[in-house]
């Protein structure tokens, strides 16, 4: 019983290479991390992994109308159903295929599990000097109940190219599901990449999401993470700047209620000089929800003239909600500009009175102010369709009636 046993049985049905067997064994040795691990101090997997998820692969068909509900209807669309890539677009200068085997430098237990057993995912290569006009939409649907699944994706962006993505992982039933997800993004020289994650899955879904970004000279990469749904979400977002004049931007919004849990772990590794990083995470906690933010910025000895900014602002709007916020700065260069700030608060009384004096009821005023607070991080999304859907999801979650066309 329990997830580990099911994973073990599943691994025996696979014909693993010696190398993958090693990786898998190293996962088994350590098992899933516990709250004794520093990186999982506030985040417990204990109850989750006690659940008896099925690990076998299944395949169901889904209706186009189901897809339409969650789609932005972009021309460039990759659709996965229960692990299988069922639709992939033709884009000039872009090569798209299913799962490809690649190594990752990241080797914690969960990533080893992903690297050893996962055989689903995509691989996207953008040629040099290519501007992909419309954003690429990536949809992952799970139709199987009580299912554990993994994805492993690779994005390689050639020099001087530009590309944007929006991704969504969606359950099509109310049952429990657990997804262990990994994406590696290689940003070539002078590239511009934006990756948007809409995390609005059903209320029983569990997600461990890991994104590793590797940047070369003069590249800019934005990752925007929007958490509204799901019962348990852990996001690991790692940037490694391997060239000069890189820019890494992270925007995050978590709006949680009931017993939802979300943990954003970010790590920016400044290894070269003249680079920037900007990080803005906003959290709104209602009900008995719980949030974790851990933002680490490392500035290596060679990384002079770094400008690193990190901000994590939280609103606790109920008695029982909590947030653990931990900024971590490690700076080994002397000519750098690093600033970080973390706030935990309630709504501003002056602003509340201002709105009430205009006839806006106290509940509505609170909701609108909360919307305003969270939307700052959404404003930085450059794909207008994604920004709009994020604003709508935010307004819906806070029960605010705003007009986006005025």
């Amino acid at each position, binding site marked *: 019983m329990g997830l580990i046993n099911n994973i073990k049985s599943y691994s025996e049905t696979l014909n693993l290479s010696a190398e993958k067997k090693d990786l898998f064994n190293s996962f088994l040795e350590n098992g899933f991390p516990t709250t004794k691990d520093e990186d999982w101090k506030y985040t417990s997997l204990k109850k989750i992994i006690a659940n008896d998820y099925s690990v076998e692969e299944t395949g169901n068909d889904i209706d186009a109308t189901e897809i339409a509900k969650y789609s932005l209807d972009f021309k460039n669309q990759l659709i996965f159903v229960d692990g299988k890539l069922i639709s992939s677009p033709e884009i000039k200068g872009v090569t798209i295929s299913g799962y490809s085997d690649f190594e990752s430098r990241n080797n914690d237990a969960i990533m080893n599990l992903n690297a050893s057993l996962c055989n689903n995912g995509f691989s996207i290569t953008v040629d040099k000097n290519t501007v992909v006009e419309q954003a690429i939409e990536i949809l992952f649907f799970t139709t199987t109940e009580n299912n554990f699944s993994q994805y492993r994706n690779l994005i390689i962006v050639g020099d001087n190219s530009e590309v944007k993505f929006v991704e969504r992982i969606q359950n099509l039933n109310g049952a429990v599901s657990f997804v262990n997800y990994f994406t590696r993004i290689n940003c070539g020289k002078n590239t511009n990449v934006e990756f948007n994650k809409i995390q609005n899955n059903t209320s029983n879904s569990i997600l461990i999401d890991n994104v590793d970004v590797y940047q070369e000279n003069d590249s800019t990469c934005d990752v925007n993470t929007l958490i509204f749904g799901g019962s348990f979400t852990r996001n690991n977002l790692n940037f490694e700047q391997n060239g000069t004049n890189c820019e890494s931007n992270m925007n995050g919004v978590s709006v949680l209620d009931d017993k939802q849990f979300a943990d954003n772990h970010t790590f920016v590794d400044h290894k070269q000089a003249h680079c920037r990083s900007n990080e803005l995470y906003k959290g709104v906690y209602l009900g008995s929800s719980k949030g974790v933010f851990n933002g680490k910025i490392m500035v290596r000895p060679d990384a002079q003239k770094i400008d690193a900014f990190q901000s994590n602002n939280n609103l606790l709007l109920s008695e029982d909600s909590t947030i653990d916020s931990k900024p971590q700065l490690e700076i080994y260069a002397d000519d750098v500009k690093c600033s970080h700030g973390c706030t935990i608060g309630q709504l*501003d*009384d*002056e*602003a509340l*009175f*201002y*709105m*009430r*004096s*205009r*006839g*806006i*009821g*106290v509940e*509505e*005023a609170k909701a*609108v*102010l909360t*919307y*305003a*607070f*969270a*939307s*700052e991080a959404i*404003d930085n999304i450059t794909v207008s369709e994604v920004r709009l859907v994020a604003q709508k999801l935010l307004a819906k979650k806070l029960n605010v*009636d*705003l*007009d986006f*066309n*005025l």
Partner: protein
Amino acid sequence: MLKINNLKAGIEDNQILKGINLEIKAGEVHAIMGPNGSGKSTLASVIAGKEEYEVEEGKIDFEGEDLLDLTPEERAHKGVFLSFQYPVEIPGISVSNFIKTSINERRKAAGLEPMPAKELLKKLREKMELLSIDKGYLSRNMNEGFSGGEKKRNEIFQMAMLEPKLAILDETDSGLDIDALRIVANGVNKLRTKDNATIVITHYQRLLDYIIPDFVHVLHNGRIVKSGGKELALELDEKGYDWITKEADKKWA
């Protein structure tokens, strides 16, 4: 319309208003003047319902109902409007969405459907013209990065959209240059009808050159110590407040 009776109020143990009596009828404009710290803004805040002020005694009758029994939003629904001395910045909410929410919350309280978008846009355009506001302004975030003058103009714009029965303009002239002052005053004048009333709170006579009051009251140390017609404002401008406040201090000593 408004009848304030022996109003005493303050913050914590500090009494600021020490027995205010004031009656305002529909169609009238009253100016409340007085030196800094006399209680002008406190009076405005208490009428609007700011919760940090404690009312110890008195009544604020507004069209037959005691405002002190109502929440700030209920007072707004009845037609009370306060133009803030320091309007609050609300990043993330556009001017248009803010105004739309205010209007529709008021309509909801009156049992009406939300205002149709077309009607709202028409009204927005009309009032923007009245106050010489350009179009880009609607999509800006509420008061964020606005100059002092823009903030005040935004207050009067909201007033024009909400069409209150009683408008209280708290130091609306501060931060305005002469052109902006003219535009704002002109807007206020155009919004005047025989059915609504305005309280203009100001330190200086300047604004009253443009918004002509029917009555002028001098507030000092929490009391109205002198009332008169519009000529009183001119007299104050010439002679300052001392001649009135000294006399009052003797009386209340």
